[in-house]
């Protein structure tokens, strides 16, 4: 009797653990402002079809075919089938956030796929949910052209101050509470500086600019400000500043090195080698000369 109780306790314990794990998996802690985000792209058969292609190249290898429950079981945690009840229960904003940040084995897709592609993947996923009704965001992509982004560098505090306004017909509108991020262009992509902020009531945001950021030979850097507003959508502005550390490192083949060709070999090596050759030749010549003298004196003796 005791044994059976013990077994039951173990089983209960296990199921509890499993439940807890699955609970932990669902708990993405999506911030409220991200939850409410919606797509400005309509989810229809066209966008779902485009999303299918993107899904197949980026997601299928782990999540499997939607609805077939064939996700990669060897992973921990097992990636859920995206037509499962727990996936369906997530809001568009939550799914978008998950795609943006990733977690554990799931990589972030923020810099891999453009925003429209990320929404199309969600459109594809929603095509498996018949009860789904889309809430389209208020974003008007045509309005993006009205937005002006002004960047000013404050050298004393090493801060980059950004002002975001829109030139509406009714007058200038300051973009409040818009998501804003600062990037610097590097050889293989954009590198984010400081954290993602939100603009204040005057449409301003202030980024800490690192004092040790390397620039080009004279200290130029290309800075990108990316604004994401509920109404105006995503806007990027690029400008050049001469505020970084001038970097002009010599080329790696500049030094005279042992592995270089003769013209660039270290001088000590060339001298050492040449003196070695001279010494050896000298000794040989000296011996020959002495042998010659010896034979000559021998001849003299005979005579």
């Amino acid at each position, binding site marked *: 009797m005791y044994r059976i109780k013990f077994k039951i306790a173990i089983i209960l314990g296990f199921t509890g653990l499993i439940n807890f794990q699955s609970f932990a998996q669902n708990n993405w802690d999506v911030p409220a402002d991200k939850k409410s985000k919606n797509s400005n792209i309509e989810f229809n058969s066209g966008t779902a079809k485009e999303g299918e292609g993107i899904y197949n190249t980026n997601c299928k*290898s782990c999540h499997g075919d939607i609805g077939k429950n064939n996700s990669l079981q060897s*992973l*921990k945690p097992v990636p859920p089938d995206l037509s499962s009840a727990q996936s369906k229960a997530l809001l568009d904003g939550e799914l978008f956030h998950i795609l943006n940040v*990733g977690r*554990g*084995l799931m*990589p*972030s*897709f*923020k*810099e*891999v796929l453009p925003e429209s592609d990320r929404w199309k993947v969600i459109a594809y996923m929603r095509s498996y949910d018949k009860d789904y009704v889309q809430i389209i965001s208020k974003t008007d992509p045509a309005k993006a052209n009205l937005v002006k982004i002004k960047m000013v560098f404050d050298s004393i505090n090493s801060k980059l101050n950004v002002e975001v306004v829109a030139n509406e017909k009714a007058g200038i509108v300051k973009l409040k509470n818009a998501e804003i991020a600062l990037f610097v262009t*590097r*050889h*293989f*992509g*954009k*590198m*984010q500086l400081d954290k993602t902020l939100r603009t204040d009531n005057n449409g301003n945001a202030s980024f800490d600019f690192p004092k*040790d*950021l*390397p620039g*080009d*030979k004279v200290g130029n850097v290309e800075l990108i400000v990316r604004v994401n507003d509920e109404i105006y959508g995503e806007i990027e502005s690029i400008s050049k500043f001469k505020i970084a550390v001038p*970097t*002009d*490192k010599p*080329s*790696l*083949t*500049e030094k005279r*090195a*042992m*592995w270089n*060709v003769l013209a660039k070999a270290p001088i000590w090596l060339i001298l050492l080698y040449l003196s070695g050759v001279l010494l050896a030749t000298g000794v040989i010549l000296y011996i020959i000369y002495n042998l010659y003298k010896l034979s000559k004196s021998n001849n003299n003796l005979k005579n």
Partner: protein
Amino acid sequence: MSEQEEKPKKKTRREFLQQLGIVGIGSVLGSSAILAGINYDKKKTEGQRIRILTAENELLEIEKSDATPVVKTKYENLTYLQKQGRDGIEGKRFVMVIDLSKCQNARKCMSACQNAHHLRPEQHHINVLKMEETENTPPFYMPKPCQHCDNPPCVSVCPVDATFKRQDGIVLIDNERCIGCRFCIAACPYSARVFNWAEPLHAQEDADKTYDVELNVPQKKGTISKCLFSADQVRLGKLPYCVSACPNGVYYFGDENEDAVTNGTTKETVRFRKLLADNGGYTLMPELGTKPRVYYLPPKGKEVPFQEKDRDEAAEHLSHS
């Protein structure tokens, strides 16, 4: 006297016959020459025809005057490719960071590399090794490409200047110069080089391609091949083949001068020195003074355990030591 008179008579007959012969042969030669000339003219009016093998492997005959030589772009010009390959990219110092805590032995880096460089399945520019350092430490997977040393022993020993270091830090091999002595294989402490013992994989398809020293294609039998940090991709601002093929975010690649490395999976760019400082970055065999350009982050906090089936292979070198 009469004899003397007769002799000139005989001579004249001989001479006559000789002359007849000369005229005969001459007329035959002359007529044949004229005939040949007519034939030549006939051919000339028809136009010279040459045979051409098309890309579809079809043998065609066309007028020689219609044929125009194929104009090669500068990227098909061997001299141009060799020069840009030797020079490298100004102002750059490429580095790679490999995060061992993320490697799950997916081996996508290896297949992407082999496809790009037309390597045989047994030839590896990059290889994912199964490692176990001591009996008490856990085993882990370790991708190992060429370390692109700043003080490369392989380059020091090359007798023909076939393998060389560029200003941007990449160590390349010029298969046009390589004599196949394999001194560099012996000198490399990281076993990063492979030799083309057999005919390369796509030897026939690649036969007409212009050799690109930044891609090592076409591969040449009897020469060395090695990891190139995908010098051709890097020139275009793209990440190396292995880096962008990784599904698990193992690789970072970037420029030391810019202090930035980009993750191949997430495409996120981070500060290079901060990444090393925060995660305890290290290089392989620093005691040799080779100064590698490939950095490793230790296999700490691995989310995916080492697979049981690989355990024997990982422990193999422990039994030898």
